[in-house]
């Protein structure tokens, strides 16, 4: 058993989950019952033994250990190592207590079924690896005891491996479920706390900032600068509060896992492969929340009330394309240009419209810029959108701004042609 696994096991124990406590109680019950079985077996065959006192001593030691473990709450690796050693010692001492003829004839070992309890203990603490390792150790002791393995020895070994492996596997699965549950509870508590903070921020700070902004504007002069500052802080704080709320909602409202993963496992292009990889484990992201971060005094973001869910990697790419379009507004539309972003969930597609009221340009100039690879339109916007299986449409009129419409399927198309 590796040190890392031991540490992880210890950490889990430290959390003292109800799951492991219940499993340990089960193993404890098994240990007591199997010890009683060992007592009955030894008592029954006391006359057959070569050295009955050794047999009684082994059963007595195992009994003391069984009671001792009952008094402890925590199951640790040193404790299990001792138990494993006791089980092996008990098995090997069978050679001393019993006659070679009996052993060769397939007589049970002194600990009998008790030897499975450290295997179970290791499975609970260390998962399937721990269970199998302990089963192999006990099995090795069994073989050593017999010398030449009999049919019964092999049968026992198989049973031990099954117990250790299966129980360990179940424990691993249950532990993963427990972790997911813990995580969900933690997220829920976090959301509740953030909601509480958001409410108190709304009531206090946002109100004050809005008030300062308002009064500052009315006073004019140097106060107007303060007003702008307050307005900017208010906007940032509002985004923060909303973003956090959105984060919680987005996480709790994910679609079925792998909704964005294509049926065909062979990706059509490297981009599709990357998108597929991102789908594993990351879930979906709310495009509205991603784009809310782009909002400012000059950029207005409008979105539906419900989260617009795309697989996280796709949402990220689309958000980058929108940001590229907004960068273009900053660079080319003029110093006073404002921009509006509208997100629409069309059921199968999502459409993002980016409009500005800047200087605009003629269609000819737009085409020239595209040919020259400028404007960022060709690659950072159109390329990204094409990789997502969508379309980009740019319209511009001199003096009346530019409108970029990006339409992208919500779910990655299962098969796509290579981009030319």
């Amino acid at each position: 058993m590796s040190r890392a696994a031991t540490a992880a096991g210890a950490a889990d124990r430290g959390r003292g989950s109800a799951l492991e406590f219940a499993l340990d109680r089960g193993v404890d019950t098994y240990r007591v019952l199997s010890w009683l079985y060992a007592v009955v077996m030894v008592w029954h065959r006391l006359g057959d033994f070569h050295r009955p006192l050794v047999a009684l001593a082994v059963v007595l030691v195992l009994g003391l250990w069984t009671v001792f473990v009952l008094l402890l709450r925590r199951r640790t690796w040193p404790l299990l190592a001792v138990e494993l050693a006791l089980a092996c010692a008990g098995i090997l001492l069978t050679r001393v207590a019993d006659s070679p003829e009996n052993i060769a004839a397939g007589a049970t070992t002194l600990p009998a079924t008790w030897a499975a309890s450290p295997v179970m203990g290791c499975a609970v603490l260390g998962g399937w690896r721990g269970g199998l390792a302990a089963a192999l150790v006990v099995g090795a002791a069994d073989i050593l005891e017999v010398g030449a393995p009999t049919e019964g020895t092999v049968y026992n070994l198989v049973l031990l491996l099954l117990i250790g492996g299966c129980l360990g596997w179940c424990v691993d699965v249950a532990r993963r479920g427990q972790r997911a549950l813990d995580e969900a509870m933690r997220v829920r508590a976090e959301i509740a706390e953030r909601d509480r903070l958001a409410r108190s921020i709304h009531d206090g700070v946002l109100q004050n900032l809005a008030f300062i902004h308002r009064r500052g504007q009315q006073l004019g002069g140097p106060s107007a600068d303060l007003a702008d500052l307050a307005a900017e802080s208010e906007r940032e704080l509002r985004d923060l509060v909303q973003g956090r709320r959105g984060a919680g909602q987005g996480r709790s409202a994910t679609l079925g896992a792998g909704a964005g993963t294509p049926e065909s496992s062979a990706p059509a292009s490297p981009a599709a492969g990357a998108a597929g990889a991102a789908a594993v484990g990351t879930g979906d992201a709310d495009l509205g929340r991603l784009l809310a971060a782009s909002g400012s005094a000059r950029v207005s973001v409008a979105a539906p009330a419900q989260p617009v869910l795309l697989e996280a990697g796709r949402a990220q790419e689309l958000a980058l394309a929108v940001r590229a379009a907004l960068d273009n507004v900053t660079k080319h539309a003029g110093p006073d240009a404002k921009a509006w972003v509208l997100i629409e969930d069309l059921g199968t597609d999502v459409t993002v419209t980016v409009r500005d009221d800047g200087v605009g340009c003629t269609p000819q100039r737009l085409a020239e810029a595209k040919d020259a690879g400028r404007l960022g339109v060709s690659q950072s916007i159109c390329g990204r959108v094409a990789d997502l299986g969508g379309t980009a449409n740019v319209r511009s009129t001199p003096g009346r701004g530019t409108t970029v419409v990006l339409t992208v399927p919500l779910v990655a198309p299962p098969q796509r042609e290579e981009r030319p």
Partner: protein
Amino acid sequence: MSRTTEPSSAGAAPSGRGSAEQVRVLVADDHPMWRDAVARDLEDAGFDVVGIADDGPSAVRRTIATRPDVLVLDLNLPGLRGDEVCVALAEAALPTRVLILSASAEQQDVLEAVKSGASGYLVKSAAREEFIDAVHATAAGKAVFTPGLAGLVLGEFRRLAASPSAPTSDPALQLTPRETEVLLLVATGLSYKEIATELFISHRTVQNHVQSTLNKLQLHNRVQLVRYALAHGLDAPQPPQG
């Protein structure tokens, strides 16, 4: 949310009853300094501030008692949420129109309030003139839409169209292509005047289209409430009044 696009659209000259008599306004906000500043601004602009309220229940009580033309309502009042205030006022069958002001622009809450009967929405960071214009527009029965609200309403109609339980067959509850077009343009920041130019229609027609989307949304909400009531057996006939 934008705070700069509305004046040209909502800021039409006060018309109808707005100019004939003083518009009566009630201000409901739990922030005393803000509330007083808003009330002062409104009085300076020639409005008659008939009262103030600092929580949800008192907003409902005082609105019912004073029957103002416009209720300027903070979305997050203690006691009752904005949409609950709107529902309570709708039940009282008041002529009062509700203009929502919100500091935090919580989207779902804004949408709920508008569905429950509020006729406009403005962020608190809006400029003073913008705010005054919006109160005038609200008093004149015009919907006050920001691009953000247009995006919300558009999204809500899309959601309703996609929802299997929605009575989508009823044309009275569906957006016409023209209304969708107008909402799209409002959501991408065009003023009503610009939309009128773009679509070769009058400013008044743009206003009517926007108003119509809001009416349909509120009608949709009422239809859903009635359906819910029918589905849950709340339609038992009242015992005849003696």
